[in-house]
């Protein structure tokens, strides 16, 4: 059985890579985000190697004792992860290029619709048409509707909104 206590140098390397990666990930420019993602994923890949334990002899080929062999499984997994990250990085780079083509920069923008709704909330308004009436006042409604029982109050704009309020005239 090979030694599985982690090497301090590798642990420090993981910490530095992930730490710098997180810092870059928080930037707005997509290019920096990509660099950050590459650093973090490389850090995680090295963490996988740590999980495999101390370096031993070549596995599987039969030149070393079973107990002296490196663990081949994490290496296989890291290889898979590296390939996947490579593809993703290429895709992200093309996205950044496309964003630069379209906007002249590659900064990730805010969600416009989100902004719009936040602005409504700030000014304490309701969006158009989310209320059921057409935006007219009660007095205007009353004037337009034919409430035969209270002609006087209609003139003064204090009409009770009758049952036939729904059958208003043309707006």
């Amino acid at each position, binding site marked *: 059985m090979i030694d599985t206590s982690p090497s301090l140098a590798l642990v420090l390397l993981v910490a530095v890579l992930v730490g710098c990666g997180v810092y870059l990930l928080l930037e707005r420019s997509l290019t920096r985000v990509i660099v950050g*993602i590459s650093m973090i994923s490389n850090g995680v890949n090295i963490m996988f190697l740590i999980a495999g334990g101390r370096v031993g002899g070549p596995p599987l080929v039969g030149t070393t004792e079973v107990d002296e062999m490196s663990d081949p499984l994490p290496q296989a997994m890291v290889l898979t992860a590296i390939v996947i990250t490579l593809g993703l990085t290429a*895709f992200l780079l093309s996205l950044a290029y496309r964003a630069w083509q379209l906007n002249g920069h590659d900064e990730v923008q805010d969600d416009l619709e989100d902004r719009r709704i936040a602005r409504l909330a700030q000014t304490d308004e309701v969006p158009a048409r989310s209320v059921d009436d057409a935006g007219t006042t009660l007095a205007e409604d009353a004037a337009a509707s034919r409430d035969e029982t209270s002609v006087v109050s209609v003139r003064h704009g204090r009409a009770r909104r009758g049952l036939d309020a729904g059958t208003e005239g043309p707006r």
Partner: protein
Amino acid sequence: MTWLLPLPVLVPLIGAGLALALARFPRVQRIVTVAALTFVLAVAIALLVLVNDGPMAADIGGWAAPVGIALVADRLSALLLLVSVSVTLGVLLYSLAQGNADGDEGAPVAIYHPTYLVLSAGVSNAFLTGDLFNLYVGFEMLLVSSFVLITLGGSRERVRAGTVYVVVSILSSIIFLAAIALVYAAVGTVNLAQLSQRMGEIDPGTQLVLQLMLLVAFGIKAAVFPLHAWLPDSYPTAPAPVTAVFAGLLTKVGVYAIIRTQTLLFPDGRVDDLLMVVALVTMVVAILGAVAQQDVKRLLSFTLVSHIGYMVWGVGMSSVAGLSAAIFYVVHHITVQTALFLVAGLIERRGGTTSLARLGSLARVAPLLAVLYFVPAMNLAGIPPMSGFLGKVGLIEAGAARGSALDWALIAGSLVTSLLTLYAVTKAWNQAFWQEAPEPLPDTTLPRSMMGPTAALVIMSLAYTVVAGPLFQYTDRAARDLRAQTPYILTVLPDGQRGSGQSPEVTEENREHSDEQTPAPRETGEELP
């Protein structure tokens, strides 16, 4: 019959290769795609019937389970596979009709079909795998194809939304990968069945770290509060069929991964209270977001996030009844949410916009569309006797049976969420369908071939009410198996040690050595505190 297991992954992948090679012949390409998914649908039905007698496992390449990769189908994965494949096929037919109606302008269909098949293969792989690292590979397959689909066409808005989606997804994958590395370092295996056997032996503190890391990774994918903000930002900009299939499947794959890892690896339920609080906040916060929206697609994205809360609640209850209701709710929600997003696509097509401020009069000009919106919308809100109501009743019953203060808080929260869902979808109904449009709508008609698949999904969601009894029995048995763990473990490792495949050299070597050495690649579990 274990040879059936790899087919839902293999057939779409081979189909994707063929579809890419045949990109010059759009008609042949379509036939390939539809044929591949129809075949997978047949396999999924067969699996659903077969696993009713107990789970099935296949060792890939004949390598015995802890060394090789195992594919496992139990009731949970077979049920979700069937629902996901049927929904995928429905959305594919819808997008074919859309392509026909638009004359293939604007959308590079040559890429669409292969990518769509890879997405389907990735989802199937995630549902069927019995190996944590292979689950990561399944996630990557579906994520990479979803990246392509969400940025299809590369317009300004899609690139913006796609960037957010891609970066957040990659981040969750990296967290998942780190969790796998830590799991391997602590336990020495990534086979789920073997992990389940050994997880109890390691330090409880380490266990908790692993559990939380996996939950964060899957929580981002499932869009659970506070990890949900990316979803309403990115989903609405994609083409309607793409949004529909994402909404139906991708978040549910995250929920499936949560269910699988919580029941199999961490059955002692130490984070149940956390899960339940998260579920409560997810439900309420997201539905309040939905109420504020002015755009049908965004409104639906928020209801999607909100209703993920119900499923997480079911998982957090850690009881057979809760888990069973959660599985039922996943099945219901995949169908209903996909149908609603397809309807949103039809609304956009008929009304020329998805903004509620500009839509109107749709009930008069497109009555069938109105029915197609109304039925799943009411189903989502939980109007009896539809499946949304049944799922919610199941969850509330399970919660009431536990009866702690937190349970009652969740019951209250779920009822409020249900009411607010009703309010949000009815508001959209009033503005888009009942009120007069502020400006006359464009003079178009909806192709019947696009209504067909949408109607099929709506009917499928209604059919859950008809088969609710047998379906609940099935999910009950699935939940009981999940809680018991042994059916799953014994299927993958029949003697508790190795799978049914052969790896002769290892076995011989093992026999030469003493018996005390286990055939696992490495044992580090005992060496850690």
